[in-house]
């Protein structure tokens, strides 16, 4: 045990040894220098508060972006389901062709009343399918062209080309963006949907075993 002294003396001794260390002293002296950077020497707690606020902003922006992406994906999926259902129903009806022929240019020439130019998609190639003809139709209420093919196995397939507003077009898989067609099975029909050169494509055919 230490030797007891008066309360005042003991308190004086206790506080007499307390001093700022060299770094702390330099920081506080420098801070009082005119023009000294206040940013570098801010209290640690203030820095943490700033860091926390910045992190919260970044997290909020990220969550807003992901929410936007999620809504866009959900909206795009809803649109494609509607197109697939419409296309499958049309395919099953097999309405009479308005133009018949196996020459693509001749059949394309029939569709002069569309406000877009038909595109010969490379996806048609590679398989020896026969063009039978085409007719006007609509996709989501907008005029479109419908081409009918006979597949090598004898089944019929229907290919649709149409236009959609740009905002909706962006929600669909794009060949130019390196995406693959979305695949749906509706009413026993397989429907592939994609965009190419700014045109919406939908191909419908019976499901093969």
């Amino acid at each position: 045990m230490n030797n007891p002294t008066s309360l005042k003396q003991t308190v004086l001794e206790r506080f007499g040894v307390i001093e700022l260390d060299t770094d702390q002293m330099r920081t506080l002296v420098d801070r009082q220098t005119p023009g000294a950077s206040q940013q570098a020497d801010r209290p640690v707690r203030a820095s943490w508060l700033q860091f926390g606020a910045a992190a919260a902003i970044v997290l909020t922006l990220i969550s807003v972006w992901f929410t936007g992406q999620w809504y866009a994906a959900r909206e795009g999926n809803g649109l494609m389901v509607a197109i697939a259902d419409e296309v499958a129903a049309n395919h099953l009806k097999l309405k009479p062709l308005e133009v018949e022929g196996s020459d693509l240019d001749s059949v394309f020439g029939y569709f002069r009343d569309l406000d877009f130019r038909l595109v010969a998609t490379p996806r048609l190639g590679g398989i020896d399918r026969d063009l039978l003809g085409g007719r006007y139709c609509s996709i989501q209420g907008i005029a479109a062209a419908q081409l009918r093919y006979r597949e090598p196995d004898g089944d019929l397939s229907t290919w649709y080309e149409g236009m959609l507003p740009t905002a909706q077009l962006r929600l669909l898989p794009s060949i130019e963006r390196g995406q693959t067609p979305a695949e749906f099975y509706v009413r026993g029909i397989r429907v592939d949907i994609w965009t190419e050169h700014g045109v919406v494509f939908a191909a419908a055919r019976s499901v093969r075993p």
Partner: protein
Amino acid sequence: MFDQQDLNRLFRYCCALCDARPDAYDLLQSAIERCIRTPPDDPERRIAYAMRVIRNLHYDQLRRQRVVVFEPLEDSSQLPQAGMDSLESIMIDRDELEHAWRRMTTVEREIIYLWAVEGLSAAEISVQLERPRGSVLSIVHRMRKRLQTQNSNTDRASQA
């Protein structure tokens, strides 16, 4: 504004208010920032001004953390009081002081510090603490009683 001697003096005051040394340094940093932004009108009274700033910042922080002890508004004239000189007779060693220091409230530590280190009278302490002189003397009375009880307990323990 503040030289090294001033800064050490203010740091000791922060150490009297705070439990831990890092907290005391944070408090001093914040107070210096405040004093730079709003300097005292009279540079000669910069220490008193800075001590007031330190005290206000510390109690604001305690209120935010909800750890401040709110004492009932007491009629100090009805309570037993003791002058600061009554503390002079208390004999205590470093270990006993550390033990007692940990059990004191912030206000009690502040009163002891201002009296012993800064050499303030009861009237001057009451100005610094912004409370009536009688209230300061009541706190001194309670502290003295407790320190004396602690001393007698220590004596009994050492005799046993």
